[in-house]
């Protein structure tokens, strides 16, 4: 049985969307290695490591994070789950904290500053948001 994911590739000015269909196994490896963002899945998310939690699909969370990060992209390098927010982008620590405040209000959660300090990558930020949404 095949599943599909919609992949979004961010650059400074554009985002490209395309659908990938494959067996879950193959898809997982695509997701792990892809330098792209997975923004939507067609229901096979449960088989993936990062499942839909409390109504916030990983896609929604990642999309919202990327919306804030795209202005800080450097060159053509896409934003991926492995992007180290403070290092790979031109965002400074104050702007990161301001982004966190916006994300807090969007998802109606609070992310304490000491938790933010431990977050480095986009994936880690998404994990934290999903976890806090689940506890809500």
């Amino acid at each position, binding site marked *: 049985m095949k599943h599909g994911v919609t992949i979004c590739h961010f650059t400074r000015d554009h985002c490209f969307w395309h659908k990938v269909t494959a067996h879950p196994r193959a898809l997982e490896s695509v997701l792990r290695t892809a330098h792209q963002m997975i923004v939507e899945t067609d229901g096979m998310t449960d088989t993936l490591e990062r499942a839909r939690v409390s109504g916030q699909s990983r896609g929604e969370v990642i999309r919202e994070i990327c919306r804030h990060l795209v202005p800080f992209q450097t060159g053509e390098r896409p934003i991926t789950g492995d992007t180290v927010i403070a290092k790979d982008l031109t965002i400074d620590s104050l*702007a990161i*904290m*301001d982004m*966190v405040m916006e994300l*807090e209000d969007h998802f109606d959660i609070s992310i*304490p*500053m000491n938790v933010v300090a431990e977050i480095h990558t986009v994936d880690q930020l998404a994990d934290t948001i999903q976890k806090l949404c689940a506890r809500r």
Partner: protein
Amino acid sequence: MGLFDRHAGLLEAYRDVRTTGYDPFQIRMERVLSPTEAIINGRKMLLVGTNNYFGLTFDPSCMEAAIEAIRAEGTGTTGSRIANGSYSEHVALEQEIAEFYGKKHCMVFTTGYQANLGLISTLAGEGDQLLIDADSHASIYDACKMTQAEVVRFKHNDPSSLDARLRRLGDRPGNRVVVLEGIYSMLGDSAPLREFIDVCKKYGAYVIVDEAHSLGALGDNGRGLCESTGVIDDCHFIVGTFSKTLGAIGGYCVSDDPDFDILRVTVRSYMFTASLPPSIVASVRQALKVVKAKPELRTQLWSNVSTLYEGLAAKGFKLGPEHGPVVGVHLPDPMTAIGFWRAMLDAGIYVNVAIPPATPNGVSLLRCSVCAVHTKEQLEHMIEVMTGIGRQLGVLDDRTLRVVGGAR
């Protein structure tokens, strides 16, 4: 990795700043002549960036009190209050500040920075939640690094943003501690304190208000925003500094909490640093008397604020949102701000330049602080000079001339 490698970005930015010829962060005041004039680079400068809101640094009665105290009790205490004891003047000063606010207790610190650092990090401990305004002063942010409490920021001057964060805590255990400032030091805007207090009451949160820039300036008796908004009784802790309106150095906190004095043996920034020297305590006590006796200084300060703010706004400068003893002038980017600052120095006027990361929302500012003893002529001259530079640098053009910044 070398010790300084992590500062590479900052070093580079700092180098850029210094290419303008002066280093805004290492100005040498060769001689200070009065609250409003000093010699810098061999030239007499008009000072409009020193937080000296009432001009009390040269008040003869404060100076005499300090000199007298040195003769009577020497130059320093050489230790902290818990080690070397309290001089009777320390205790008298604390009583006088407590009385000034109508609060039961007061604790005096060696700086306002230490007051915030120690109090906030001690009051909010493990299991508690500390909520701070996004534009808080560095001393408040540093307290957040020291506290064991969970820290959450809310949007600057936005009571609904605080409300959302307190609501999200639900019925989780722990004390809620909210930190606010009377007047914010970069843009001179004041907090909607009454609205904030209503939110805090709704959720049973403790309130700490830092009146560093509003002491003397606001309220019928100069107690600050807590007085002008009528909420002194609802502020659990009021913090402030002697380094601005009172023209010296030191910090304080007042409170009605019956157990307040336990802080004297728990707040480390109080316990492990030398107490204020007799001369400072004496000049501060006198300065507080002057603040009480001369409300005309407050009237004069606001009249000067009005002259500068309205004058600059009329020329098309984009300013902070409201009148305040700090007047922040927005400039498009850090290099323009530094160029502008430098041109003002060349024209004989000293103000502060504030650029990211020290500013909220990445803005670049000239930060002007108004003094009650500035003359109208001095301020009008400044407006003229700034208008000329603004036109030269293309900050003021026909387009910006129509955009008169700020409310009121």
